[in-house]
């Protein structure tokens, strides 16, 4: 089983394309169903910044074609040119880096691990992640936790929210006395709300389709909840709007925002859209005195101040490299052991067959003792012959890749099968129930 990763992210694809490929849970289940068939395993990751498919399959070419077809089917033909593909160890490294938030738009942002775990749970429930994938995920999540606890990457992370605050400062000079409208009441809204409040925003209004959730968040950050229907009235009072809903269509169009400019008395309006698909139509930015930023724009701001985090990020990269090597080593042991068992089995089979043939040909001419000697000799030849290969197959080389296992399987015409025994690695699994 080899690992494959095909997908696109904020690094390779424009927002328009990511919007089209923002998969609904139903679409994810559909893809899982289609790809995770037979011996193949699959995992679908869909966040605002990335859509990725991880597949563990015996034949990667076939699986890759299947995944590309599925993604192009949803994202349109132009999606193909934005897809990246990693195979084998590169795919493993990518999985680890994504989980540890090293590939995130905001390096070190904490949400991605939760999103990866959710994706894994979905795949597991659908039967998509069983052996190889579930072990790889468990190891990736474990190393993500290690990165979090051993580096300051999360603490020093310049989040989307704080980037939004620094942008607001460029428009308003400061947030003191400014009114904030949070549309959506998820994790992003909460983060943004806390940042804006600590930057001095005087009034925070939360509006969410599910009103109870808005009330909850408002209570948590010292704001007020307003019904979702009153969204456009609230827009009249707001200076900063942060959107993060899962709405498939924009909540704010050019016309709907233009309508409030006069009642707002042309005060500048700063709108941040952290949602994919977007909650604010891109044309809104063309209105006089309205500054609408989407996730890609915010990304550009973050890129400005990312140098400070690079030291922690390179520490994290070292941890990831260690963890990937450790995982690969453990996998080699797992894969090496069945080859060994099969090899021995095969040799013993041959020895037994040859002994039976020889003894059959000699007939009753041999005494029991002589028979035993022939059998012992055959076994001894097998043992002597296999002694060195056994020792070598068991020893895992420094770089962690057990090339001998594959070579032995190839040489002796064996099939590298799945591990039977649970590897020691599983002892370090996070608590999300990723045990297989």
């Amino acid at each position, binding site marked *: 089983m080899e690992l494959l990763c095909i997908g696109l992210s904020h690094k390779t694809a424009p927002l328009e394309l990511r919007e089209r490929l923002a998969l609904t849970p139903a679409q994810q289940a559909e893809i899982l169903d289609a790809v995770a068939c037979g011996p193949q395993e699959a995992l679908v990751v869909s966040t605002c910044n990335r859509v990725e498919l991880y597949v563990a399959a015996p034949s990667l070419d076939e699986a890759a074609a299947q995944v590309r077809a599925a993604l192009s089917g949803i994202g349109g033909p132009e999606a193909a040119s934005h897809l990246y593909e990693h195979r084998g160890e590169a795919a493993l490294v990518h999985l680890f880096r994504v989980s540890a938030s090293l590939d995130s738009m905001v390096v070190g942002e904490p949400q991605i691990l939760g999103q990866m775990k959710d994706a894994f749970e979905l795949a597991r429930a659908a039967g998509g992640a069983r052996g190889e994938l579930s072990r790889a995920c468990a190891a990736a999540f474990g190393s993500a936790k290690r990165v979090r606890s051993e580096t300051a990457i999360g603490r020093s992370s310049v989040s989307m929210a704080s980037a939004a605050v620094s*942008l607001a*400062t*460029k*428009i*308003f*000079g*400061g947030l003191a006395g400014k009114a904030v409208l949070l549309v959506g009441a998820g994790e992003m809204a909460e983060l943004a709300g806390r940042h804006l409040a600590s930057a001095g925003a005087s009034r925070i209004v939360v509006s969410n389709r599910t009103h109870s959730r808005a009330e909850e968040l408002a209570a948590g950050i010292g704001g007020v909840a307003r019904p979702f229907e009153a969204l456009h009235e609230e827009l009249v009072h707001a200076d900063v709007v942060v959107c993060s809903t899962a709405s498939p269509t924009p909540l704010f169009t050019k016309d709907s925002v233009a309508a409030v400019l006069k009642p*707002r*008395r*042309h*005060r*500048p309006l700063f709108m941040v859209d952290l949602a994919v698909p977007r909650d604010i139509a891109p044309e809104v*930015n063309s209105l*006089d*005195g309205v*500054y609408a*930023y989407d996730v890609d*724009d915010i990304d*550009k*701001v973050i890129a*400005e101040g990312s140098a400070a985090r690079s030291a922690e990020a390179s520490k994290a990269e070292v941890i990831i490299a260690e963890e990937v090597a450790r995982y690969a080593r453990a996998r080699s042991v797992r894969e090496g052991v069945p080859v060994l068992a099969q090899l021995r089995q095969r040799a013993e089979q041959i020895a037994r067959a040859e002994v039976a043939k020889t003894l059959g040909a000699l007939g009753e001419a041999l005494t029991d003792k002589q028979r035993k000697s022939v059998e012992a000799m055959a076994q001894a030849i097998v043992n002597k012959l296999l002694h060195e290969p056994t020792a070598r197959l068991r020893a895992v080389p420094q770089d962690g890749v057990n090339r001998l296992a594959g070579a032995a399987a190839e040489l002796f015409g064996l099939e590298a099968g799945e591990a039977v025994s649970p590897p020691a690695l599983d002892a370090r699994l996070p608590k999300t129930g990723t045990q297989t």
Partner: protein
Amino acid sequence: MIPLFSSIAFHAYALGAALYLICLVRPKEALAWLARGAIAVGLLLHGAALCSQFAGQGGAPLGMAQGFSTVGFLLLVIFLFVDLRYRLPALGAFLSPLALGVLFPGLLLAGGSQVLPDAVRRPLLPIHIAIALLGIAALAVAAGVAGIYLLMEREVKGKKFGLLFARLPSLQVLDDLNRRLVLAGFLALSITLLTGVFFTGTQMFWHWGSREIATLAAWALFGGLLNARIFAGWQGRRVALLTVAGFCVVMVSFFSSYDLTRLGGLR
């Protein structure tokens, strides 16, 4: 003495402008203070030169050369005040070169001492001219700030995040500054018009020349702008654009106050 002072002042201004520009690229508190110091030294020398010049000619600047020189002087006075008050050295990178641009023609035009004709010699005239030039300088700074606003607005709107985005003050600060400067300029313009009308009421003849029309037009424009700000909440980009437009009209008024065919003379 006067040419020497003026020349040193001009060089001090140039040094200040260069320091402000360096400060824009590599912001350092010490550099900003050096720049302010250079401008202040220039202002002292320039001010001394202007005073001794005016003392010999009835207390008012005469001719276009002195007009340019005085406007440049007042512009830098206003700018330095703004910079000391709000600590906005980034503005210096734009406004001090602008002041140099105003001063340069003043240096080129021969501005020797002149004597005010008796026909127009009356106590209010120096005040009329001084306030007119102060208003022009305030509106010049306002137009400069409006230009900076437009630059910054383009960065914020276009999401460019370049050097200017990092260094320029926030849109709100620039807009506030624009409001104060336009208000000051408008008041000065109003007083200029009133004192001007006073002259016409006595001896000098008011006629609808380009100077009067341009000044009235500028006054109406800035008056309308302030009204739109106060009563309709106008701000930002359109106000900045109108400020620049209004300043162009003020410049027409300034040039037409001097007889262009006879450089250096008061009409």
